[in-house]
């Protein structure tokens, strides 16, 4: 070795080269090794490079949208970490709500903020629970206008395989006036909102000729769509709230032929913002009618259904590999449901798998098949194509199980420390979810 300065530089370089391949969870612990290691691991440049180098960390836990009395967020861990990384924000008098989880970063808002003016349009935060860091996004300009009736939706786009930076999209419109959406984009690189453009409302052909008071506006992007978005394949997606997406019973006569049955409500569409194309789009094809609903028997006379479908849960997410999935659980038969996937070109949903949970729980004695919550759908990205296997991750009281949909077999079962823990989702009041968590050093 030559001069000591060179040696020091070499040590630094070599150390960085080693640590960049060490998973984030270990690096958090290694902040305790020495002050030098702390500064190295906390350095934003190192963090960005680490994020790019480790773009697909495994899901290690799930956060529930439920909050406890003490406003901490409930969580389910798949083993490690065993502690809950999500601390509430500085003003912890208010409950933190997760809007979206995206590759380790979380888009959140404070549910009951103290300040009056914040109440209608709470500002959003981007949180990285791994590093205990968060960024409060300044309000987009349209929100500052203090309009009484604003529709607002936010979505987070973070793809560590492409960039260590993230963007947040804000779509809004004034409910009382205006015929267009305003779209603003926040970039973590610049730290500012940029007004992109205005997007026209989506036309509603079925409203042709209808009186303004009876218009349904089925394609309109508004409150009927969920607050929480899903990022997938360079676009941010919003589906309708479960309670909006009913299945009406229709009886149609087309000349001689009479079709009778449940149909999807035409408003059950998908809206998405394509980041690359910078456009707000509509995937109008509604999902197919589930088997459970089709099988609802009709009364012999009158051809009227014996009962109406009651949707209990609607799970919408992205399975690794860039596919959107939709799973609906109906009260009629909770243990049978379909896993639907959206075509890559957004032409429609198709049923990928039928699941019969009574088969899944057969090997688990004493397990009530009705007590479950869908956590995640994961695709083994390595083996794509014909061999690709998709695993359905479920949470049942005291455990987490993964079920391979292709082989219809159990893969793993994680016993939770708290055997009684069951994070069932709150029902009507708030359509929440269990959000996947993975460790990342990503900078907020």
């Amino acid at each position: 070795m030559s001069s000591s300065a060179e040696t020091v530089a070499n040590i630094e370089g070599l150390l960085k080269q080693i640590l960049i391949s060490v998973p984030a969870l270990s690096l958090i612990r290694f902040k305790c090794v020495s002050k030098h290691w702390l500064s190295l691991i906390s350095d934003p440049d190192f963090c960005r490079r680490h994020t790019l180098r480790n773009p697909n960390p495994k899901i290690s836990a799930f956060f529930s949208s439920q909050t406890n009395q003490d406003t901490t967020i409930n969580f389910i861990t798949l083993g490690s970490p065993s502690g809950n990384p999500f601390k509430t924000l500085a003003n912890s008098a208010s409950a933190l709500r997760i809007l979206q989880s995206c590759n380790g970063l979380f888009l959140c808002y404070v549910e009951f903020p103290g300040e009056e003016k914040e109440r209608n349009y709470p500002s959003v935060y981007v949180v990285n629970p791994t590093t205990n860091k968060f960024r409060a996004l300044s309000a987009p300009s349209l929100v500052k206008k203090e309009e009484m009736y604003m529709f607002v939706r936010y979505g987070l786009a973070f793809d560590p395989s492409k960039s260590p930076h993230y963007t947040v999209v804000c779509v809004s419109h004034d409910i009382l006036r205006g015929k267009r959406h305003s779209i603003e984009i926040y970039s973590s690189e610049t730290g500012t909102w940029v007004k992109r453009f205005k997007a026209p409302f989506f036309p509603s052909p079925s409203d042709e000729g209808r009186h303004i008071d009876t218009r349904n506006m089925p394609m309109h992007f508004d409150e009927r769509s969920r607050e929480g978005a899903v990022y997938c394949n360079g676009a941010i997606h919003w589906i309708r709230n479960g309670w909006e997406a009913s299945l009406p019973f229709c009886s149609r006569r087309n000349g001689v032929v009479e079709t009778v049955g449940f149909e999807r409500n035409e408003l059950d569409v998908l809206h998405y913002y394509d980041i690359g194309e910078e456009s707000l789009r509509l995937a109008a094809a509604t999902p197919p009618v589930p088997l459970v609903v089709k099988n609802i028997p009709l009364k012999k006379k009158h051809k009227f259904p014996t009962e109406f479908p009651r949707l209990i849960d609607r799970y919408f997410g992205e399975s690794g590999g860039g596919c959107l999935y939709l799973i609906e659980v109906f009260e009629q038969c909770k243990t049978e449901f379909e896993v639907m996937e959206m075509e890559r070109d957004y032409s429609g949903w198709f049923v990928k798998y039928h699941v019969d949970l009574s088969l899944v729980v057969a090997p688990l004695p004493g397990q009530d098949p009705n007590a479950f919550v869908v956590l995640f759908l994961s695709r083994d990205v390595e083996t794509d194509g014909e061999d690709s296997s998709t695993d359905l991750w479920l949470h049942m009281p005291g455990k987490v199980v993964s079920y391979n949909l292709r082989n219809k077999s159990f893969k793993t079962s994680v016993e939770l420390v708290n055997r009684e823990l069951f994070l069932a989702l709150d029902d009507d009041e708030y359509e929440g979810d269990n959000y996947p968590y993975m460790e990342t050093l990503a900078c907020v």
Partner: protein
Amino acid sequence: MKKISVRTSDGQEFELEENLAMESATIKTSLDAFSRDDIILLPNVNSWEMVKIIEFFTKVQELETKFGVKFMEKKEGRFLEAFQAEFDKDLSDDNLYCLLWTVDYLGIEVLLENLCHLMAERTKNKTVESCRNLFGVQHDYTPEEEAEIREDYSWAFEGPEIEE
């Protein structure tokens, strides 16, 4: 193929094939400066390390033939796994660390990258104390300072701190 002679710190001599020797930036620099017939002295390299490095190149050629992939040109997943498995055995943490330094000194980029990766695998489950020992890092926190960090990230320390 021309052979290049090198002598390690403990006096042992090795003959390397020219194209392999050129993978080392350090050796290459020496060769450019001096005649190729001279023996290159490597006072910072131990003979056991040289053996390992030669082993590496031999292994690469074997695996290249087996998988039909040019290792030096493209990172192939299964190839890397096979290589890592091969190098992982018989190398203690400390030896791995020494080898890393030597390979860094010799400037063999592609081997260095793999060894760093291997090192990362070995390190990730270590306790904070083991890390200090392995990397020869001085513990410069006061007990209060360290306690504060452990408190901030208490969730990461919950559960048993794993040790290989």
